[in-house]
């Protein structure tokens, strides 16, 4: 018990003596654990909002599309779809079959579907118009969030579509050239929100857009039945009617099908689970972005901690010697050395857990498409355990080896406090001789502690990978949006952008932290060298430039490595979808910005270090 108290006292005193370093390590681990928690929690988020919308709108268990057979990429004018009286006859017959079908408890419809070209706010977009009665339907009655339901001349827009267009209740828009007033805004559980309307039907849509374009960008709106039928043109007739069904057992929705009718093909059936999945695409995208981001952040945090812990280890060698000289066992010594880092890691992990859990709802709000918010994503015990374990593992990994080495090393040499002399690297030394003074100093500094240089390069590479991944995302998504041509803001893109922004900020903060930490520890390590150089006649400017160069030299390969790494990261997260490489000047700008940041962050400790009076440094320490 007394030994525990002793260790505790030593740890407390040490933390008080170096609060800045402790704070830095806390920050690094907190950021990493927060990001990890976010990623893990979002993984398990459920699609609750869809359920709420389903309940509020009396959402259907099954949708039946009657009329034309499922058309992949159907465009107006092609042969095949029935229209006019032939269509009506087909629809009547299929409705009757549906009514008779076992398991159906309620039905509403059939509602005609027409393609419409919407012009509003100077924007143009394709839309699917559904014809409805003014009276509420028994199944799938969209819930109004603003204004009122359809009326002659009045159109109700789906909420995300309205947000994309930037219109609200009372605004005036045109459909296929005819003027309409926006009567209201509503949400529905019967269709995925804009722009995912066509996702689940293999990329095609039942109501083809009048403007041949991309498979996204189709919005949903409701009109009165007469208004919908009036939208039809000879080029683009009404070819489909939709019926909403409620089943006795919603779980069987996927298997529901009508018996074969030799007269017409079976209607296309969409179950509510498919729509739920399409709904979830928004959050799924976020997860895709967050997971690699979280691991990147964790990597950077590990690098930070390694540098911090490694730096402190060399300072602690004398303490080790002292403890052993007064009789502490190697085990106790190791415990003392590691207890401090473990305490910090635990504290940081707890803070990070809470921070990540609090931040998760911000990212999982379902956007405009659905009502309600998800319940607070559950911070399950396994998640908390995993995050704590990772934090401890990070602290352990970074400190265990040096701690054991310190504890088992010779007491005498520890007391003599001689850090390991740097290995001689003749090639680097020879290379540096002809260079200008800052590069000469920088190269020799790198040669002294190559492992730290490698760590610095890794840090820069990881950061660069994150930045390049973000740039690739922008290039790829921008290509897709631009291909659509409507100019509407894509909520998925917006949300992804938001998440990426948050992630990028976290990454950049961690990276900056890393750079400052590395530069600071390097400055402390090389304080004696810098003082000696100045005593031998190097100007303070050259010495500061040399210290900066020592950080920049490993940053160059890091930056170059980060580019393919980032592109690969995005490709992996995108699950092999088509990606567009960012333009060369974006990459060049990123490279220059990163290198400038590294140089800038290194310059501050370099300047501070170069200013201390040489005399006291030289007297205090030996090389």
């Amino acid at each position, binding site marked *: 018990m007394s030994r525990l108290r002793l260790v505790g006292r030593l740890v407390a005193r040490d933390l008080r003596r170096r609060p800045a370093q402790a704070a830095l390590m806390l920050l690094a681990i907190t950021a990493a654990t927060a990001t990890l928690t976010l990623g893990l929690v979002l993984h398990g988020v459920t699609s609750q909002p869809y359920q709420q919308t389903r309940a509020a709108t009396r959402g259907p268990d099954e949708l039946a599309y009657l009329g034309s057979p499922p058309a992949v990429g159907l465009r107006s004018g092609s042969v095949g779809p029935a229209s006019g009286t032939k269509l009506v006859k087909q629809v009547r017959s299929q409705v009757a079959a549906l009514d008779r079908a076992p398991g159906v408890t309620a039905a509403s419809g059939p509602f005609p579907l027409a393609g419409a070209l919407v012009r509003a706010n100077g924007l143009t977009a394709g839309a699917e118009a559904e014809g409805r009665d003014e009276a509420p339907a028994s199944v799938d009655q969209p819930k109004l969030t603003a204004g009122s339901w359809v009326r002659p001349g009045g159109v109700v827009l789906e909420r995300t579509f309205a947000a994309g267009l930037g219109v609200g209740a009372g605004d005036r828009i045109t459909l296929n050239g005819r003027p309409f007033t926006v009567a209201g805004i509503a949400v529905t559980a019967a269709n995925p929100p804009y722009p995912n309307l066509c996702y689940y039907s293999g990329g095609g849509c039942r109501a083809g857009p009048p403007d041949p374009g991309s498979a996204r960008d189709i919005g949903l709106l409701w009109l009165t039945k007469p208004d919908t039928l009036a939208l039809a043109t000879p080029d683009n007739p009404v070819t489909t009617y939709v019926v909403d069904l409620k089943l006795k057992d919603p779980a069987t929705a996927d298997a529901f099908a009508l018996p074969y009718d030799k007269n017409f093909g079976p209607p296309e059936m969409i179950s509510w689970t498919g729509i739920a999945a399409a709904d979830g695409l928004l959050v799924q995208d976020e997860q895709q972005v967050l997971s690699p981001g979280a691991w990147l952040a964790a990597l950077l945090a590990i690098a930070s901690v390694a540098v911090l812990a490694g730096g402190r280890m060399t300072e602690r060698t004398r303490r080790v010697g002292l403890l052993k000289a007064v009789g502490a066992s190697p085990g106790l010594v190791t415990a003392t050395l590691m207890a401090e880092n473990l305490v910090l890691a635990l504290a940081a992990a707890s803070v990070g857990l809470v921070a990540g859990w609090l931040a998760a709802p911000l990212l999982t709000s379902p956007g405009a498409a659905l009502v309600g918010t998800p319940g607070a994503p559950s911070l399950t015990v396994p998640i908390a355990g995993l995050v704590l374990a990772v934090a401890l593992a990070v602290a352990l990994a970074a400190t265990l080896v040096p701690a054991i080495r310190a504890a088992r090393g010779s007491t005498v040499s520890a007391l003599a406090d001689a850090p390991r*002399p*740097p*290995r*001689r*690297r003749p090639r680097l*030394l020879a290379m540096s*001789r*002809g260079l*200008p*003074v800052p590069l*000469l*100093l920088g190269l020799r500094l790198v*040669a*002294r502690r190559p492992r730290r240089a490698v760590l610095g390069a890794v840090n820069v590479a990881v950061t660069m990978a994150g930045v390049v991944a973000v740039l690739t995302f922008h290039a790829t998504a921008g290509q897709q949006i631009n291909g659509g041509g409507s100019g509407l803001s894509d909520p998925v893109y917006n949300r992804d952008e938001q998440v990426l922004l948050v992630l990028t900020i976290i990454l950049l903060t961690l990276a900056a932290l890393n750079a400052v930490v590395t530069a600071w520890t390097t400055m402390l390590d090389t304080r004696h*060298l810098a003082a*000696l*150089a*100045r*005593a*031998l*006649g*190097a*100007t*303070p*400017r*050259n010495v500061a430039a040399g210290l900066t160069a020592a950080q920049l030299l490993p940053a160059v390969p890091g930056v170059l490595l980060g580019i393919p790494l980032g592109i690969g990261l995005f490709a992996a997260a995108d699950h092999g979808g088509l990606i567009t490489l960012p333009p060369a000047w974006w990459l060049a700008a990123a490279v220059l910005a990163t290198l400038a940041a590294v140089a800038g962050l290194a310059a501050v400790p370099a300047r501070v270090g170069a200013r201390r*009076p*040489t*005399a006291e440094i*030289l*007297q205090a320490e*030996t*090389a």
Partner: protein
Amino acid sequence: MTEDAALLSCCGLRKTFGKDAGLVRAVDGVDLDVAAGETVAIMGPSGCGKSTLLHLLGGLDRPSGGEVRLAGSRVDQMSERALARLRQDSVGFVFQAFHLMDELTAVENVELPALLAGRPARVARQRATGLIERVGLSERAGFLPAQLSGGQRQRVAIARALAGEPLVILADEPTGNLDSAATLEVLRLFESLHTAGQTLVVVTHDSRIAATADRLISMRDGTFIDETRLTGGTRGDPGALGALADLDRRS
């Protein structure tokens, strides 16, 4: 000695550390004139401020008061850049702890100041080789400090101090970390430097080193308390040495 003849001089030099109750007057009003070619030894108990004084003379530290002049220019008022140039070609330092770089060979250590001053690599190497020879370590030019004895390391450090052809060499307890045999090596070197006309200011508590000086100054509590001229005496007087040998003290 007149003001103009002094190569290195200081007047009313003061350096204080800390404040209020913790105020320490490391150097408290020191006047010193060192002529060209002179060897001056400063002796005193530890903590008397002699190392601080040396740092002030060489521009490694800024005084709290007074002035330091080297070859006519005010050292205490120089910018950091000018001080760097000073250390490149006017002042050479020798430290008690040698302060050699462990991963550089002897000759690489000696050429370092020239490289740091921006001189071409070949010129620096040539000069370094010559200096290594001057201190008598030609066969060990390619050795690392860990492979050299204490005396040899300090000789390398002295060669390094000579790299810029300095006007004055300031040595801070050069034999402090050396045993008597190594002290002898350094002694010989100092004597030969003295004979060659190098100006030397040595801070030491070793009377053997002090005995090589032209002037010996005693320092205590930040001020000079005594100055002894060690010129003249019994040089070449055979009788004196004989008397020494008969050193059977009556008790």
